[in-house]
C-alpha cells in the first residue's frame, strides 16, 4: 500500500442552471479513484457552491496511482429523479509521483461535459503521500520522469542516453462494444475518455519499467499515439528515448552558465584546441576507432580522395530524369518506374517466402508487398505473428527482445531525440523510412498485443537495416505514425540514419572522456555532413564532393534529415518551410484488394514527394532539409502525401545546381519559346529566393581545395576569389546540362503541371519566415512575444472534377491558402517567424480533406536581425568549441540566450502575454488595465448591503476575493486567471525554464446533437479547440506552472453528420508543464534566489520552485 491520495473539493463557480424553476443548481461532487468513491454534501441553490469538503483519502497501490486518473464528477441533486451530471474533470496525478515535479495540484479546473462542453469550474486540491517501496518485483515505475521534449530538457544534463523504449497496449474501443447501442452518447464518450486515460497511464507505467530496467531515470522525446482502429479496437502506443538525467542542482551555478552563455562565451578566447584538458581521465574511447568500426569505409575514402571523385561522378553524368538521387533513398524506390510494376506484380503472385534477400536491401516496394502478403497469410492461417514466412528466425528473436533485458533493447538503436548534446552526433547518413500496409483484424486478446507488436518490430527492423545500408549504426529523430481508413492501416516509421558518439550511450563511462572530442578528425560545424558510408560501395547513386568547410572529407550534394538543425551547423542565410503535396486517386475497394492498391501506389507517391521536395529545395537555392516529415494519409478513394521540412543552405555542402527544363518536342518553335520562358522564370525565382533568404555562399578558390586549411575561421575569410573548381556550379548556368542541374522534362501536361506548381508556391509576405524546426537558422534575437495556434480547414471536393491534377491543385491551394491566412492573421506580429509548423492531413470522408496546422509565431527584433551570418557562424563556432559542462545541456539556448544582451524595455515585459495587441498603443493599454484595477479597488471599499445575484458571484468566489486583496501586486496580477503560455517548441524565448512539472497528456471527446445551434461545424470545432486549450492551461496552472512546452496536438479526428445535425470530435494533446522565469526578471533576482515570484499568480495555484 505505497501511496495515499488526498483530495479536497473547495468550491465551484459559474455552474450552469440545472433547475429551470429557481434558475439555480443544487450541486454536489463525486470523487472517484479506482473503485472508491466519495461524495461531498449537496450545496443547495447556488451557481457558486462552497463545498469546502474534508480531505478524501484513497489508499492505493502505486501501480494504480500511475494508471488511474482521478475522476471528479459534478452533479445536480434531484430529490425525485436521477441526479443530473453537470460534467467531469479528469486529473492525471502522475506529476505528483516524482519528487522533482509538482508537490500539489490545486486550482480551478473547467468542468467538462462531452455534450455541452465546459460548464463552470471547480476548485480542487490534490496531494499524494508516497511511501518508499523497495520491492524489486514491483509493477510500478513511479519516479521515472517523462518529457515530450525531443531534446535534453533545459535544467537537466544527460549522463547516459540509453536508447529506444517502446510499448503498446490494446483494448476494445467502447464505441464499438454492444453496450454502446443502449447507452447514451455521453456515457459512451466518457467510457472512451476514461479508457484511454487508463491505457495511457498503463502504457506510461510499462515504459517506465523498461526504463528502470535499463537503469535510466527518464524518458525524453516521449511520443504517445492512439490508433482508433474502429471495430478492431483501440491501440495506444508510445515510443521514447530512455536517459539518465542529472538535475542541474544549484540554480546559482546554473543560472550564469546557461542564462547568458553568449556573454560568457566572449570571455573564452577562441582556441585552436578548444579542449583545455582540465579533467582528462577515463577510458579514452578513441572516437576514431569507433567511427571506424561503425563505418569502416570512412578512413578508406579519405585516402583515396581525388580519384574517387571521378569515380563517383561517372555514373552521374548520364542524367536520367527519373534517376532519383534522392537522398532519402533507402525507402524511396531507387528503381526506375518501369520495372516497378513488374516486380510488384510478380511478387504479389509469389509466395511470401520468396523474397527474403531483397528485403534487407531495402527496396521498399518489395518490402511493402511482402508485409502485406504476409499479413494475408497470417490472417488466413490464424497463426501467431512472426512464425510465418521467411523472416521467422530474426523475427522471433525480435519478439523475445522486447521482453528481454534492456541491453538487448539496443537492438533498436533508435533515438526519438531531434536535438542533441554537442558532440553526440558524429555523422548523418540521410533519411530512412519504411511503410507497410496492413489489414486490421480484431484484437482477440488484449493482454497479448502480439500482432501489433510484430508489425512495428518488422518496420523497425527494416529501418535498422536501411540505416546499416547507409553505414550508420543508429537512427535519430525517429518517429512512428499510422493512417487508418476502414480496415486498412499504413504503418510508417522514419528517422535519420546517423553515426553517434558512443560516449553518451555507455554505462559507466566516466565523464572525463568528454575531451575525446572529434576535433582532431572532425572539424566543428561540418562533421555531421560527412558521409558515413563507403564511397565505393554506395547504397544509392549520390554525388559526392569534398566538404566545403574542412576540405578533408566527402559530403553529399544534398542532405535530408528528420532532426533539427544542429546548433553548431554552419548555415548560410535563413531557412524556409518547404512542402511537397501530392494526391493520388485510387479505386474504392475492399480489404485485400484495397491494401494491394495502396501498396501499389505508395512507392510512386514517395518517389514523387521526394522529387517535389528536391525541386523545391533547388528552387530555394538551398541544399539541405531538416525536420523532414512525410505523411501519407489513406482515404476511401485517394491517398494524400504531405512532406514538410525546413530547407537551409549548409556551408559544408556544395551549392545546389539549378533546375533545367527540357522539352520533348523540339521542332515546335513556339513550344521552344515557351520552354525557355519557363526556364527563365525558374532561374529568376532561384535568384530571387537566394536574395530573400540571404544565401550568399562564399566562393572557394582552387588552392583552398588543394590544401585544406584546418582553421575554419581563417578559411572563411578567403571569400570572393574566383572559382574554377570543376565540380562546383558557381553560376546558374544551366544551358550545358551540367551534372548538377536537375532536369525536368516537359513531355506532357502532367509535367507542365508540376513545373507550374513549383512556381505557384508563394513566398511568405515580407517580415514573415516559416520553418518546421525548433529554431530558424539565421534568426537569433527572438522577443518574448509568442502566439501558439491551431488552425483547421476542411474542404469538400466536388466529385465532378476528381482527376489527379484537379485533386493536386485543390490540395495545394488548400495548404497555400491556409498559410496565407496565417500570415494575414498574424500580421500584427511582424517581423515574426512561424516555428514548428506542423501540418496534419486526414481524409475523414470520401470527398473531404482536413488539414490541421499547429505552430507558434514568435516575433523577433528586426534591428538585430541584420546580424551577419558570419557573426552567427562565428558565434556558433565559439560556442561549439567552448568545451564546458553546461554545453551538454542543450543547444537551443543559442537563440534564447541572445536576449539578455539586448534587453528590451521592461514595459514590454508585462505585456508579453498580449501577443495580439500591437494595435493599441502601450499607453492606452496601461490605462485600460489600470482602471480595471481601480474598479476592483473600489469594489473592495464599496458599501455592501443587500446584494443581489451578481454580487454573490463575487462573494462566493474566494479566489476573487483573494485577488482583490492582492491588489497591491504588480499589474500582471490584475488578471484573475494566470497566463499560461503554450508552445510546440522546447523553450520559451527570453525566458528560462526552471522546473519541469510533469507531462500533460489529455484526450477529449466532444459531441453535439445541435450542430446548427452551435454555429455549424466551424463554431463547434472552434469552441472545442478553445476548450481544450483552456483545460490544458488549467491543468498546468494547477500544477503551479505557467507554460506548456513541446506542446503537440497529436490527433484531431472530426466527424460530422449535418443531416442529423450531429458532429463528434476527438482531440489528443500533450506537452510538458513547466515553470519559466523571464530572463529580465532573472537578471534582477540573480543575486537572490531566482524564485518565480514575478510571474503572474495562477488563481488558486501556488507557484513552487
Amino acid at each position, binding site marked *: 500500500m505505497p501511496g495515499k491520495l488526498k483530495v479536497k473539493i473547495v468550491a465551484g*463557480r459559474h455552474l450552469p442552471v440545472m433547475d429551470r424553476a429557481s434558475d439555480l443548481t443544487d450541486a454536489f461532487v463525486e470523487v472517484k479513484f479506482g473503485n472508491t468513491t466519495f461524495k461531498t454534501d449537496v450545496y443547495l441553490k447556488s451557481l457558486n457552491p462552497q463545498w469546502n469538503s474534508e480531505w478524501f483519502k484513497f489508499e492505493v497501490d502505486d501501480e494504480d496511482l500511475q494508471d488511474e486518473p482521478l475522476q471528479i464528477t459534478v452533479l445536480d441533486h434531484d430529490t425525485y429523479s436521477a441526479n443530473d451530471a453537470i460534467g467531469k474533470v479528469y486529473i492525471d496525478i502522475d506529476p505528483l509521483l516524482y519528487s522533482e515535479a509538482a508537490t500539489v495540484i490545486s486550482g480551478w479546473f473547467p468542468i467538462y461535459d462531452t455534450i455541452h462542453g465546459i460548464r463552470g469550474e471547480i476548485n480542487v486540491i490534490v496531494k499524494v503521500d508516497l511511501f518508499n517501496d523497495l520491492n524489486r518485483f514491483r509493477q510500478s515505475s513511479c519516479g521515472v520522469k517523462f518529457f515530450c521534449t525531443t531534446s535534453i530538457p533545459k535544467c537537466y544534463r544527460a549522463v547516459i542516453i540509453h536508447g529506444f523504449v517502446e510499448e503498446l497496449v490494446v483494448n476494445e474501443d467502447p464505441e464499438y462494444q454492444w453496450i454502446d447501442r443502449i447507452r447514451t452518447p455521453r456515457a459512451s464518450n466518457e467510457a472512451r475518455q476514461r479508457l484511454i486515460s487508463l491505457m495511457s497511464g498503463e502504457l506510461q507505467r510499462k515504459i517506465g519499467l523498461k526504463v528502470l530496467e535499463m537503469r535510466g531515470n527518464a524518458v525524453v522525446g516521449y511520443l504517445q499515439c492512439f490508433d482508433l482502429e474502429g471495430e478492431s479496437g483501440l491501440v495506444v502506443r508510445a515510443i521514447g528515448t530512455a536517459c539518465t538525467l542529472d538535475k542541474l542542482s544549484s540554480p546559482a551555478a546554473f543560472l550564469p552558465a546557461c542564462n547568458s552563455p553568449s556573454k560568457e562565451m566572449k570571455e573564452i578566447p577562441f582556441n585552436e584546441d578548444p579542449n583545455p584538458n582540465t579533467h582528462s581521465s577515463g577510458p579514452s574511447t578513441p572516437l576514431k576507432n569507433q567511427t571506424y568500426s561503425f563505418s569502416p569505409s570512412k578512413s578508406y575514402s579519405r585516402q583515396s580522395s581525388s580519384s574517387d571523385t571521378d569515380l563517383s561522378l561517372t555514373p552521374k553524368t548520364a542524367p536520367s530524369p527519373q534517376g532519383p538521387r534522392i537522398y532519402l533513398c533507402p525507402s524511396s524506390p531507387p528503381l526506375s518506374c518501369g520495372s516497378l510494376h513488374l516486380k510488384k506484380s510478380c511478387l504479389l503472385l509469389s509466395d511470401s517466402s520468396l523474397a527474403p534477400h531483397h528485403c534487407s536491401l531495402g527496396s521498399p516496394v518489395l518490402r511493402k508487398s511482402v508485409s502485406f502478403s504476409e499479413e494475408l497469410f497470417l490472417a488466413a492461417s490464424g497463426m501467431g505473428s512472426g512464425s510465418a514466412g521467411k523472416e521467422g528466425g530474426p523475427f522471433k528473436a525480435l519478439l523475445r527482445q522486447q521482453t528481454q533485458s534492456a541491453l538487448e533493447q539496443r537492438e533498436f538503436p533508435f533515438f526519438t531525440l531531434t536535438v542533441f548534446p554537442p558532440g553526440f552526433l558524429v555523422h548523418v547518413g540521410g533519411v530512412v523510412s519504411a511503410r507497410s500496409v496492413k489489414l486490421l483484424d480484431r484484437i482477440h486478446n488484449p493482454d497479448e498485443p502480439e500482432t501489433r507488436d510484430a508489425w512495428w518490430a518488422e518496420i523497425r527492423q527494416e529501418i535498422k537495416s536501411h540505416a546499416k545500408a547507409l553505414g550508420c549504426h543508429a537512427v535519430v529523430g525517429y518517429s512512428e505514425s499510422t493512417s487508418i481508413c476502414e480496415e486498412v492501416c499504413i504503418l510508417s516509421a522514419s528517422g535519420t540514419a546517423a553515426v553517434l558518439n558512443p560516449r553518451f550511450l555507455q554505462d559507466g563511462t566516466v565523464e572525463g572522456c568528454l575531451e575525446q572530442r572529434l576535433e582532431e578528425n572532425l572539424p566543428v560545424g561540418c562533421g555531421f555532413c560527412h558521409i558515413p558510408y563507403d564511397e565505393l560501395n554506395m547504397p544509392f547513386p549520390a554525388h559526392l564532393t569534398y566538404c566545403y568547410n574542412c576540405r578533408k572529407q566527402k559530403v553529399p550534394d544534398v542532405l535530408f534529415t528528420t532532426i533539427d538543425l544542429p546548433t553548431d551547423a554552419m548555415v548560410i542565410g535563413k531557412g524556409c518551410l518547404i512542402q511537397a503535396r501530392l494526391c493520388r486517386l485510387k479505386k474504392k475497394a475492399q480489404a485485400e484488394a484495397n491494401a494491394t492498391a495502396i501498396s501499389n501506389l505508395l512507392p510512386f507517391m514517395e518517389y514523387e514527394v521526394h522529387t517535389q521536395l528536391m525541386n523545391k529545395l533547388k528552387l530555394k537555392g538551398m541544399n539541405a532539409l531538416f525536420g523532414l516529415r512525410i505523411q501519407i494519409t489513406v482515404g476511401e478513394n485517394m491517398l494524400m502525401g504531405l512532406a514538410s521540412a525546413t530547407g537551409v543552405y549548409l556551408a559544408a555542402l556544395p551549392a545546389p545546381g539549378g533546375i533545367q527544363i527540357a522539352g520533348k518536342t523540339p521542332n515546335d518553335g513556339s513550344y521552344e519559346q515557351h520552354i525557355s520562358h519557363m526556364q527563365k522564370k525558374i532561374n529568376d525565382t532561384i535568384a530571387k529566393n537566394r536574395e530573400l533568404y540571404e544565401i550568399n555562399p562564399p566562393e572557394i578558390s582552387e588552392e583552398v581545395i588543394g590544401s585544406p586549411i584546418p582553421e575554419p575561421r581563417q578559411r572563411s575569410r578567403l571569400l570572393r576569389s574566383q572559382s574554377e573548381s570543376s565540380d562546383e556550379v558557381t553560376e546558374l548556368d544551366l544551358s550545358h546540362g551540367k551534372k548538377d542541374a536537375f532536369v525536368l522534362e516537359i513531355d506532357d501536361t502532367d509535367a507542365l503541371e508540376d513545373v507550374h506548381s513549383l512556381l505557384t508556391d508563394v513566398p511568405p509576405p515580407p517580415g514573415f519566415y516559416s520553418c518546421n524546426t525548433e529554431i530558424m537558422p539565421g534568426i537569433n534575437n527572438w522577443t518574448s512575444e509568442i502566439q501558439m495556434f491551431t488552425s483547421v480547414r476542411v474542404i469538400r471536393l466536388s466529385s465532378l472534377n476528381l482527376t489527379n491534377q484537379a485533386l493536386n491543385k485543390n490540395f495545394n491551394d488548400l495548404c497555400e491558402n491556409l498559410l496565407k491566412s496565417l500570415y*494575414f492573421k498574424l500580421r500584427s506580429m511582424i517581423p515574426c517567424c512561424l516555428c514548428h509548423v506542423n501540418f496534419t492531413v486526414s481524409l475523414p470522408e470520401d470527398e473531404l480533406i482536413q488539414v490541421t496546422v499547429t505552430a507558434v509565431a514568435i516575433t523577433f527584433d528586426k534591428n538585430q536581425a541584420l546580424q551577419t551570418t558570419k557573426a552567427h557562424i562565428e558565434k556558433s563556432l565559439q560556442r561549439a568549441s567552448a568545451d564546458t559542462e553546461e554545453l551538454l545541456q542543450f543547444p537551443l539556448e543559442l537563440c534564447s540566450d541572445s536576449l539578455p544582451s539586448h534587453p528590451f524595455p521592461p514595459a514590454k515585459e508585462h505585456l508579453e502575454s*498580449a501577443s495580439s495587441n500591437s494595435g493599441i498603443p502601450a499607453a492606452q493599454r496601461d490605462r485600460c488595465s489600470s482602471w480595471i484595477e481601480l474598479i476592483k479597488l473600489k469594489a473592495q471599499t464599496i458599501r455592501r448591503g443587500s446584494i443581489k445575484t451578481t454580487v454573490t458571484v463575487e462573494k462566493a468566489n474566494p479566489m476573487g476575493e483573494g485577488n482583490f486583496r492582492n491588489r497591491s501586486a504588480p499589474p500582471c496580477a490584475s*488578471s484573475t486567471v494566470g497566463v499560461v503560455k503554450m508552445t510546440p517548441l522546447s523553450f520559451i524565448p527570453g525566458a528560462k525554464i526552471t522546473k519541469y512539472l510533469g507531462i500533460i497528456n489529455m484526450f477529449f471527446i466532444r459531441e453535439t446533437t445541435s450542430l446548427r445551434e452551435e454555429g455549424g461545424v466551424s463554431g463547434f470545432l472552434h*469552441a472545442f479547440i478553445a476548450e481544450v486549450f483552456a483545460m490544458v492551461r488549467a491543468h498546468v496552472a494547477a500544477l503551479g506552472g505557467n507554460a506548456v512546452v513541446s506542446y503537440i496536438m497529436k490527433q484531431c479526428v472530426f466527424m460530422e453528420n449535418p443531416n442529423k445535425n450531429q458532429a463528434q470530435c476527438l482531440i489528443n494533446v500533450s506537452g510538458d508543464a513547466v515553470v519559466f522565469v523571464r530572463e529580465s526578471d532573472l537578471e534582477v533576482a540573480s543575486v537572490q534566489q531566482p524564485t518565480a515570484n514575478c510571474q503572474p499568480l495562477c488563481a488558486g495555484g501556488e507557484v513552487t520552485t
Partner: protein
Amino acid sequence: MTSELDIFVGNTTLIDEDVYRLWLDGYSVSDAVALRVRSGILEQTGATAAVLQSDTMDHYRTFHMLERLLHAPPKLLHQLIFQIPPSRQALLIERYYAFDEAFVREVLGKKLSKGTKKDLDDISTKTGITLKSCRRQFDNFKRVFKVVEEMRGSLVDNIQQHFLLSDRLSRDYAAIVFFANNRFETGKKKLQYLSFGDFAFCAELMIQNWTLGAVDSQVDDMDVDLDKEFLQDLKELKVLVADKDLLDLHKSLVCTTLRGKLSIFSEMEANFKNLSRGLVNVAAKLTHSKDVRDLFVDLVEKFVEPCRSDHWPLNDVRLFLNQYSASVHSLDGFRHQALWDRYMGTLRGCLLRLYHD
C-alpha cells in the same frame, strides 16, 4: 472546392479591433468584408478576399462566443476558455458597452421594455444605425438597469463594479439608468437641441442632490429614485411666488444687485416674475410623477426659451441665476432656505447646461 470548415484558434485569443468595431456596429460578415476591402487592407497586406472572408468569419465567431461573457463582464475576467490579456479584456468590455449618441437620444428616458424594443426598427431607420447594433445597445441599457436598479450604494460605483466600465462610461450609464427609472421626457421637439451630454450632466447633479442617496446612503434604490419627501416639501417653495410681497422683495433684491451688470437688465426686470413663477411652479409640481417626467420640457419652456428669445448671453444667465438663488437667503419671511438650496443648487447647474442653442 468549398470550404466546409475553417477555424483558427490562438492560445491567446486574437482580437482585431477593426473587425470588433464592425461586429459591434452590426454588420453582417459579407458587409464587414466589403468594408474591410474598401479600407485598403488587401493592398496593404497583399491578402486575397478569400483570406479576408475567412479572417472575418473567425473573428465574428470569437466575438459571438465572447458575447455571452460580455453580458456579465466579471465572468470575462474569471473564465478560462479565452486567454485574453487584461488590457484587451478592458477594451472588449468598454467597446461592447459603448453606445451611439444618436441612439441613446432616442431611448433616453423611455421605459426599457419590450414595447420600446419593438420601436427599435424605427430608431434604426431614423438613425441609420443597424438594427443589430440598436438591439445590443438597448439590451446593454436594459441589462445594466436590471442589475443596478434596486441595488444599494452609489449608482456609478455599482455599475463600475458589475460591468467593469471606465469611469466616464459608468457615469453615462448611471444617467441612462436614472432617466429610464424616472422616465424623463427627452424626445419632445423642443428638447431636440439637447445632447446626451446635457442630460447626463443634469442627471449627475440630480443624483447627487435630489435622490435618497443624497441624504441617506443606507437605503435601497438610493441613487435611482428621487427623494419623495424632498419633492413633497418642494410645495413649500410656492410661497416665493404666491406671496406678492415676497416676490416683490425677491425681485428688488435681485435687481439692485444686478443693475448695471447685465446687458439685458431691462428684459430681466420685465420678465423676473414670469421666470420666478416658472421655476417655482416647476418645483411645486414635482409631487406628481407625470410632472416629474416633464421636468426638462418645463425647464426649457419656462426658462430657457423666454431667456433665449430675449437673447440673454450665457454669462448674464449665470449672474442672474446666482443672484436669484442667493438673494432668497435675505428674505426674512422665508423659512425653507435649505430646501431652496437643495432645489436651486441643482436646478441652476442644469439650467446653465441646458441654456444653449
